[in-house]
């Protein structure tokens, strides 16, 4: 398959359409040959009962810049050799990817913690707003208490 070109060490993107997970991870893996461990997380729209669609909106002037700062913070804190953080915006259907992060480090513990850290922050400290369409219309999704607790772990 055609090899995707990633920017190294940090590749951060806002995507307005689908993403090819296998291709992205193959490219990330190839870009970080020197890493002993690579962790990835893929978040998808859960086909929960009644959910027909999900929409993610963002704020042009803050969202991508904030994601870049976040990736840099993870890079520094966990001694990474590389990180990828891609986030969808716009309309998605159940089963579609919303977010993909990948982290590369010499040792696996750092790669695991960095991916966890990135996800906790993308969930509840990045400039995204999410709403779901159910049979009775659109509903905005409030951050859950659990998400705030997860975030506290890194403070």
């Amino acid at each position: 398959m055609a090899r995707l070109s990633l920017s190294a060490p940090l590749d951060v993107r806002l995507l307005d359409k689908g993403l090819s997970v296998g291709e992205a991870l193959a490219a990330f893996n190839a870009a970080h040959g020197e890493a002993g461990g690579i962790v990835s997380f893929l978040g998808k729209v859960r086909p929960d009962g009644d959910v027909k669609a999900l929409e993610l909106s963002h704020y042009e002037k803050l969202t991508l810049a904030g994601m870049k700062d976040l990736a840099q913070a993870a890079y520094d804190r966990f001694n990474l050799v590389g990180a990828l953080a891609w986030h969808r915006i716009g309309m998605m259907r159940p089963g579609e990817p919303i977010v993909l992060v990948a982290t590369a480090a010499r040792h696996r513990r750092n790669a695991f913690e960095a991916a966890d850290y990135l996800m906790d922050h993308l969930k509840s400290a990045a400039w995204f707003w999410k709403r779901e369409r159910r049979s009775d219309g659109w509903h905005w999704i409030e951050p859950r208490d659990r998400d705030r607790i997860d975030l506290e772990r890194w403070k």
Partner: protein
Amino acid sequence: MGVRILFLGPLRDLAGEQEREVPGPLDWAGLLEAVGPAIAEQLNEERVNVACDGKVMADKTVLAARDGDEVALLPPVSGG
């Protein structure tokens, strides 16, 4: 060219519009008045942030937007 007020996420539904232009300059009191009581109530909550000209304000009550600035009203986020 005035001050553009942007309503993000659920505030967009509450405002019934995505953005509104008001004459500058605009301070905190002026903002609360310009957006109406429902949004003003939200703005008074700590968890709602305000960005002026692409920067999130540490203290939103010292807002001092001038003509050409963009003031974004940022409710609690939910990503991923």
